[in-house]
């Protein structure tokens, strides 16, 4: 069992938690993920680590409430325990040898992008961060990004904070001005990453994306997280849990990944509604 040391709501749908898991904290690097289960009948879900405190032995996770499991997770309080918490899994984000990098984060994906930006910044790399959210209410981690970046651009879809528009707008402006990076690293919704890749493609700058497909074991056993890559004109099946979660954005079949992400949509919606109903009943009973 793994204790929730601290819990902070970041906005109405995003929560930050610090989990006591010293073995994971000792090893986790930016870009890696953990698998957790909230309770004994719970499902295994992957969450990419948002940071860790090796001294305190805690791992920071930031998650959006999107379904039954994240809803249950969000109902846990400080001092409560999670059933399982295993990791770190996947390969860390490659940061060696990079001097100028542009990080493009979207929504809760920014939580995963942050430790990458911090690592690069600590290693003396020049970091440009572009982070986007639907609106001001959903903005997270702005100060931490500012501290880890030479330049920070904040975007909101509705213009309620920062600039109005999506992350591709400033990215394109910067690239059109002739500025170049050793790499663009993007983490966020699939549709956003797909368009970031298309924005970067004409420049030929390497573009890394962080994939978060449906997983079960997360250790290279079930094949549920498989992705199709298009490499040298061939289709290659790759597994996000052991080969990723970072991939060369130019190779990913985003359309297939988006379809596969919706595989259990009906079951998920039903489970979410059922969970919310149960929590409401509990509240009424209390």
């Amino acid at each position: 069992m793994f204790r929730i040391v601290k819990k902070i709501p970041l906005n109405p749908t995003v929560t930050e938690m610090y989990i006591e898991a010293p073995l994971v904290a000792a090893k986790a690097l930016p870009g890696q993920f953990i698998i957790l289960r909230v309770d004994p009948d719970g499902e295994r879900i992957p969450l990419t680590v948002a940071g860790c405190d090796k001294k305190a032995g805690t791992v920071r996770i930031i998650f959006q409430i999107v379904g039954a499991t994240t809803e249950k997770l969000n109902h846990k309080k400080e001092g409560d325990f999670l059933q399982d918490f295993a990791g770190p899994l996947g390969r860390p984000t490659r940061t060696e040898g990079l001097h100028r990098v542009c990080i493009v984060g979207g929504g809760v994906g920014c939580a995963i992008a942050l430790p990458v930006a911090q690592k690069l910044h600590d290693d003396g790399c020049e970091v440009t961060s572009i982070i986007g959210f639907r609106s001001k209410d959903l903005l997270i981690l702005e100060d931490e990004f500012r501290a880890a970046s030479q330049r920070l651009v904040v975007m909101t879809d509705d213009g309620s904070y920062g600039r109005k528009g999506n992350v591709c707008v400033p990215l394109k402006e910067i690239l059109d001005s002739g500025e170049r990076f050793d790499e663009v690293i993007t983490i966020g919704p699939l549709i956003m990453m797909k368009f970031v890749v298309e924005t970067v493609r004409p420049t030929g700058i390497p573009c890394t994306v962080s994939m978060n497909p449906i997983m079960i074991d997360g250790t290279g056993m079930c094949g549920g997280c498989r992705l199709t890559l298009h490499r040298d004109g061939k289709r290659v099946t790759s597994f996000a849990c052991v080969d990723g979660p970072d991939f060369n954005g130019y190779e990913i079949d985003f359309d297939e990944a988006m379809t596969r992400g919706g595989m259990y949509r009906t079951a998920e919606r039903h489970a979410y509604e059922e969970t919310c109903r149960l929590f409401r009943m509990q509240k009424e009973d209390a």
Partner: protein
Amino acid sequence: MAKPNMSPHKNPMPTQPAEERAHNFREVALGYSEEQALDEALRCLHCKNMPCVAGCPVHIHIPAFIEKIREGDFEGAYQIIRESSSLPAVCGRVCPQETQCESKCVRGIKGEPVGIGRLERFVSDWHNAHAPAESFSIQKNGHRVAIVGSGPSGLTCAGDLARLGYDVTIYEALHTAGGVLVYGIPEFRLPKDIVAGEVDNLRAMGVDIETNIIIGKTLTVDELFENGFEAVYIGSGAGLPNFMGIPGEGCNGVCSANEFLTRSNLMKSYRGDVDTPIQRGGNVIVVGGGNVAMDAARTALRLGADKVSIVYRRSMEELPARREEVEHAQEEGIEFRLLCNPVEILGYHNPDNPRDPRNGFVTGVRCIRMELGEPDERGRRRPVEIPGSEFEMPADTVIIAIGTSPNPLIRSTTKGLEVNRHGGLIVEENTGATTRAGVFAGGDAVTGAATVISAMGAGKVAARAIDEYIQSGAQK
């Protein structure tokens, strides 16, 4: 001595009727009664040269335990099995006895061999139902061994070493101990209570089981040595499922047998009241002909499929699954489409509505008929496509059960471990010693997908070798 039972037939195994069991997850085979066990035990001729023992990967003293059954001393029979096997209730259920002990039985020459597997199962179940919880007083020898993976191979190695006095810690990556016995083999063939009972036995012997720790990630093999373990046994099992590499494999509703079975077994989605979803109902096609394919097909049936078909590219004769599993599957109504092979998986696509929720979901499989050609290097006749013989089968779920390749996590993070061209760890056959001193390995991590009992045999061999290695002082 009682007169031998010279019937040419085994006592039949009582089973749940096919039409009933096809709709529930309770065990298919119900086990012998005491009368049936006594009667079957009388079929053993007690051959002097004991061919059956030579056929057993862990060399259980088969005639001796059968003799105890004949005497009515079921606990005594259990203790004899226990000397050689750490997991008797498991082996009595899932071992392919027909190609092992029973294939060597003299009674098999004229009729059916003695039902050794059924007797083993009877004895183990009798013990679990009647014997008080075992208490162990083992003199500890002060040496520590780490085991990677809690599947049949790791559990066996751990049990043998614990009995010799070693302090044993098993590291399991998943949240439940048991490996393939828990995530792979379905409840109706191996109830999970039985696996849990065997694991509890090991705990009672003082074996420490740490779940949620992925060796190669959470801890490395080097760190295990730094932490004071003198030897490490790697029984991390098979790994990534193979796919066919044909168009449409990325469609929704297409999954590996590992994924389908893990959802149902480990995550318990067969119960319907847990959080992990699983595809139910409709037309299900399972590609492959091994035991895993049979497990997936029979699980899909029990989850409410309208129709389940197994697509296999060779004929019934070459089908690698156990005969008993194939017969059970046929009785339950699973269709076998032999001598055909998928060439494309067909998906739904609504050209007028990109938001149609059915877009991207599988609708069928295009197959091609095959005929058997010349034998390959293993002597199996190679299937050859018949040009122009393509046909389509409707499907809502396609489960791919065509094998696995070894998991890369440990070899990619451990120096000095050499692997063969399939990615399996290279070991000395008689010891399980890898190319790195102090590291031993066995089971699917070495051989690729094989049987529970051969993994147990490897665990046993390695336990003996680890004992010799540590007692010789070579680890210092």
